[in-house]
């Protein structure tokens, strides 16, 4: 019998410190065994449980796109026991990955449509996966608009990636910060405000929104005013998890389990559920 709780061994190939305060690091992981790599077939929006023997597991969104072969990227915020330990690890060390888990973004539904991606802070991780996927399959999607904000320029994730995307002409990238600094020449303003300015059209479009609760609270009304509906606004939730497979009973939002029926939900679905997340 296959045991879904046993993590597969991976090697840390590279650790990139993303933010100036060093609280966020991206880990590039590679499976030790080829069959594990082949079995790990995922879609943007899914997550995996990162396992450190002796410390525990943490559910982290997959930041890489399945089109980026041979490795997985996870961006981890240093918060507690497992993440602190992970942050102190070095390239070459072995850890475990269990997954892919969860319901992904509805990529097939997005095909042929315009896609607006709105992300805040370090919730941008699975959105990176989605953008990279769409750009690698560019012809399958309509207009791609991205609005991504962080507190300060130093807190932006994937700075190199953002530069690459900025240089392209097949994606409308809008990066903003709440507060600029001397080196920053880009937009300054909160994500909801920038969303209002960019005013992405809701016609034939889906919006993927992921960020801190306060950003979501003020962005949703902007979108609704622009003509978006709860069915076309897609969210990704976070909740405390342990098993990751809908059994341990911890991450439920009403009858739905964040780890199994989510983490991706439409706003319409969330409106029918208690706000226990």
């Amino acid at each position, binding site marked *: 019998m296959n*045991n879904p709780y*046993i993590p597969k061994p991976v090697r840390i190939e590279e650790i990139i410190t993303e933010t100036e305060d060093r609280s966020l690091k991206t880990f590039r992981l590679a499976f030790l065994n080829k069959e594990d790599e082949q079995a790990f077939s995922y879609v943007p929006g899914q997550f995996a449980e990162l396992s450190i023997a002796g410390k525990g597991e943490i559910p982290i969104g997959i930041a890489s796109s399945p089109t980026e072969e041979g490795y997985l990227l996870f961006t981890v915020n240093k918060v507690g026991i497992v993440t602190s330990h992970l942050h102190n690890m070095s390239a070459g060390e072995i850890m475990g990955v269990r997954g892919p888990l969860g319901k992904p973004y509805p990529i097939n539904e997005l095909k042929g449509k315009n896609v607006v991606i709105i992300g805040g802070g370090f919730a941008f991780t699975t959105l990176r996966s989605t953008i990279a996927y769409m750009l690698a399959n560019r012809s399958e999607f309509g207009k791609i608009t991205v609005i991504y904000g962080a507190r300060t320029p130093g807190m932006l994730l994937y700075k190199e990636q953002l530069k690459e995307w900025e240089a392209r002409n097949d994606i409308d990238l809008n990066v903003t910060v709440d507060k600029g600094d001397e080196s920053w020449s880009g937009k300054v303003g909160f994500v909801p405000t920038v969303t209002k300015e960019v005013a992405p059209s809701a016609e034939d479009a889906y919006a993927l929104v992921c960020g801190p609760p306060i950003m979501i609270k003020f962005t949703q009304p902007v979108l609704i005013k622009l003509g978006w509906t709860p069915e076309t606004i897609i969210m990704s939730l976070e909740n405390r998890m342990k098993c990751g497979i809908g059994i341990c009973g911890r991450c439920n939002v009403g009858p739905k389990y964040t780890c199994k029926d989510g983490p991706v939900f439409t706003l319409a679905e969330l409106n*029918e559920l208690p706000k226990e997340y």
Partner: protein
Amino acid sequence: MMKEMVIDKKDIAGLLTELTGEMTVIAPVRKGDNLLFGPVSDGSEAALDSVNTRLAPKDALFPQCEKMMTFTTDRQAEDAHTMQDVSEPDKQVIFGVRPCDAAGFLILDKVFNQGGAEYEDTYYLRRREKTTVVGLGCNKPLSTCFCASFGGSPFGTDGLDILLTDVGDKYVVTVLTDKGEARLKGKSGPSEADPTSIEKAGQIKESAVKSVKAGIATDKIKGKATMELFDDPCWDTLYETCMNCGVCTYSCPTCHCFDIQDEAIDTEGVRMRNWDSCMFSLFTRHGSGHNPRPTKKDRFRQRFLHKFKYFQDNFDTVACVGCGRCIRLCPVNIDVRQVVEEMNR
């Protein structure tokens, strides 16, 4: 398939002892003032002459503390971070299970096997496969028993491989499945049932079924929208005297929440799971400190909504078997029957 046999009460201990030679035997045993399920090394240790056990037998399928995998924490070791699965569990028979608890097993089955290899709880299923469940019917249900509310009965056979009926000096042994038959094969105790015993068993069953109060109705709950139940003002007062301890969840045959933790001594580590409770304040607290259910009211409401609404939405059955343990054991007498009555208004 159904076969009726009988066994003299004085031969039960012998039967159990014989079974211990083949597999682990778990039966009600006395520990001080408590009747609890536990392994027996000799049949005489089993106590079958009483009301239901203090705690449910779910521990036999879903242990309170269970090793999931072992590993070394020595970073230099060759197999560093390789998690080793634990060995297969032993065969076991759980003896003396009341029909409500057996029905509880069927509910746990739904949780631990949600289809597809990714959603199978290997530990539970491995144990389940190797388990025979021998039930004991309830001649005298308690006033807190309400199995009938959920289609159960003091002599219900759901989830059982064998059902015993106490007819005084004997048990009528109703064999229900092949597994049950296999357990009795070659055993000295059981013999073919006589008509008198069968008739007596029928009378006892009839009288027991009559005495069980229906208890509660849950018919209206399914039709209500989640948010309608969630926002109902009844929660503002129902939760007030709850202490948010874990007694109801831990004694319940169907509660299944658990926590996963790593423990290590020197370099020998184990990832294990322990029962956890939605009643505990930290159950849903994020690493950031944010807690989706920060108040007692949130957690109290969650337990009842989960058992009687969400579970029904997902699995077409309520996650309660009417065993009445939570009613008898709650330190502040919170009565599930009263809560559900409010929910079903």
